[in-house]
């Protein structure tokens, strides 16, 4: 194999793994140092997020919920997203990683221990319709691939709203609960598409409603978007979002 062919071969391998999304950090190669992210020491979650404010916040013009409590990523070393069958993600998301996972409303800055990891809850507002978990992790110098994220928010409804639906898109698989009840599950290797998976008809109580969500990814640019749709399929906007 001459040099030219060898280069080509390496290039092909690179493409294969780019395509598969297997460009995880532990892929062994002598050229690892070329990765510019290794030299990117001045990281930030800006401009993707700002710290959550205390002021009232409504969903954006399309009804997307932008204020969330986000937990730093739990290590979940999947090298590929092909494993995200319904059974797998149901198992992965109903496993208890930290106490009060399904019951407690976490506080900003609170720390939880998951295995050997000490992880912090952040109260943030996305500057986009979607919540870019990849940028959240990257900006905080956390691992970006082979991860499981938890997200929580509080929806304040001015009245009882029946027959609304939670509409979710996520990269990759995810699962969502409203007031402790399973609402919608997104299995498989997914890209985030608005209104991809939609819950059955739900009721938003008058007052506080808690949304919990978990997003899992092997290699991939994790993010999600969540909004509520009314009976006519129009976004629900007359709600406010808080994190307490």
């Amino acid at each position, binding site marked *: 194999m001459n040099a030219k062919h060898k280069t*080509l071969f390496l*290039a092909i391998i690179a493409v294969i793994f*780019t395509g598969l999304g297997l460009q995880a950090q532990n892929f062994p*190669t002598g050229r690892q140092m070329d990765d*510019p992210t290794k030299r990117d020491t001045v990281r930030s979650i800006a401009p993707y997020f700002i710290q959550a404010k205390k002021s009232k916040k409504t969903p954006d013009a399309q009804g997307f919920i932008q204020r969330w409590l986000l937990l730093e990523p739990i290590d979940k070393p999947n090298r590929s997203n092909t494993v995200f069958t319904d059974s797998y993600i149901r198992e992965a998301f109903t496993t208890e990683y930290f106490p009060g996972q399904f019951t407690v409303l976490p506080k900003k800055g609170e720390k939880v221990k998951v295995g050997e990891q000490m992880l912090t809850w952040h109260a943030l507002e996305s500057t986009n*319709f979607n919540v870019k978990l990849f940028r959240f992790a990257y900006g905080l110098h956390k691992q970006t691939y082979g991860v499981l994220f938890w997200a929580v928010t509080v929806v304040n409804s001015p009245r009882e709203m029946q027959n609304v639906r939670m509409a979710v898109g996520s990269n990759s698989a995810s699962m969502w609960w409203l007031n402790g009840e399973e609402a919608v599950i997104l299995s498989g290797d997914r890209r985030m*598409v608005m209104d991809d998976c939609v819950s059955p008809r739900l009721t938003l109580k008058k007052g506080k409603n808690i949304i919990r969500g978990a997003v899992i990814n092997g290699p991939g640019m994790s993010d999600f978007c969540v909004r509520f749709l009314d009976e006519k399929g129009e976004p629900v906007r007359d709600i406010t979002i808080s994190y307490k």
Partner: protein
Amino acid sequence: MKSRIKISGITALLSFILTGTVAAQIGKPFIHDPSTIMECEGKYYTFGTGGGGLISEDGWTWNGGAVRPGGGAAPDAMKIGDRYLVVYGATGGGLGGGHNGRILTMWNKTLDPQSPDFKYTEAILVAQSDGIEDNDAIDPGLLLDPTDGRLWCCYGTYFGFIRLIELDPKTGKRMEGNKAIDIAIDCEATDLEYRDGWYYLLGTHGTCCDGANSTYNIVVGRSRNVTGPYLDNMGRDMLTGGGKMVLAAGGRVMGPGHFGRVILEDGVEKMSCHFEADLDQSGRSTLGIRPLLWKNGWPVAGENIKEGTYEIESERRGYALELVVDFVRMAGGMRGFGRNANEPIKPVPSQELADVIDTWPTGNIGVRIGDYMTRPHQKWTITAAPDSSGYLGAPYYKIVIAGTERALAATADAEVITVPEFTGAPEQLWRIDQLTDGTYRIMPKVVPNSDKKLALISIGDSTPTLAEFDMSSDNSKWNFRAH
């Protein structure tokens, strides 16, 4: 030498051609991320990921042999003036997963590696991603805007945004001061097209490179401006994940991706793609070429006609192509209106070939267009021609009266007849293209003693002939109905 190779390929693949799908190219059409198909001096070319590409002499049999330096991924190609502009993405230096891609363009006067003129110019960098930003500069697609001559290039993958930049069509360089615009998320292998006042962004959604488990599929959004917003049929911006299906898996081919468009002439368009897995070809990634249809202003993949038995219906009047033979009456006839409603029900057999064939002449029989009556002289069996000859995206077809070898044929005076035995002569081979409106054009491979390209035309409601194809006339169009 070349033709010998082709023949052996044909033999190996004949069984697949005859399965009734006639979907995949033949030869050794193995490729991933095929660039838009280019025609150069009578041959067709497409380049793929990793360097190299395929060449075809007829557009149906494809084999390796195209040459593209630079390696990298997912090229595109375009002819501008008398030169070919080839663009590709060089993946980041970080083999461990960098997203610092680079888009490079280069020119060549010919795509034929045997030509003395064959020589790529030095590659020019037109876009790059730093490996950190929300973009990975690979998978470029070119659009030369037919309304104003401006040259655009979109690029990107799932890592962030699909971006649009403007190039100088004279040099292939980035226009000075041009800033990239974000136009989509959730795609890769994008391509831009213009048609009838709309710009179309075609992207590939889903997961690639996983063989028969790949979920790759081709989606589209459209915009009145090249810079977007590109909305799908639900009014959803491709920046929020929108996309209307153009082609998904079907039959024995999985994971179509990397769209390319070829306009052959007014009303006749093809799309190219690869299938992540062609189960009839070892599950390998293969070149796909399909008719491209436009329905209500949206591109949709058409389908090569499947092998089978059909009514051939004229779009002009809705009558069916048939032999000029004496009409053979079925038993019965007029029965009056006052019949007892309680008579026992008993099916009446359909007229079969054996009931009528002895009344037909044994020599050539003429062809006309008549009221469709589901009779044997109106049923045509259509199969890929045994010699594996073809044109862009499909084989020539043999068209015979069902149950016989009586074959439709062009005559030297540009009319159509049937001959009693199919011989494989070129005037008995038919090119069938699905048109952009979903109807079909039917053309003989040759009209004897003529070099004109003629199509089957309704010259009267009841009279077919061979004449020039005209997309704006229903005379030129046919439907195949399987009853």
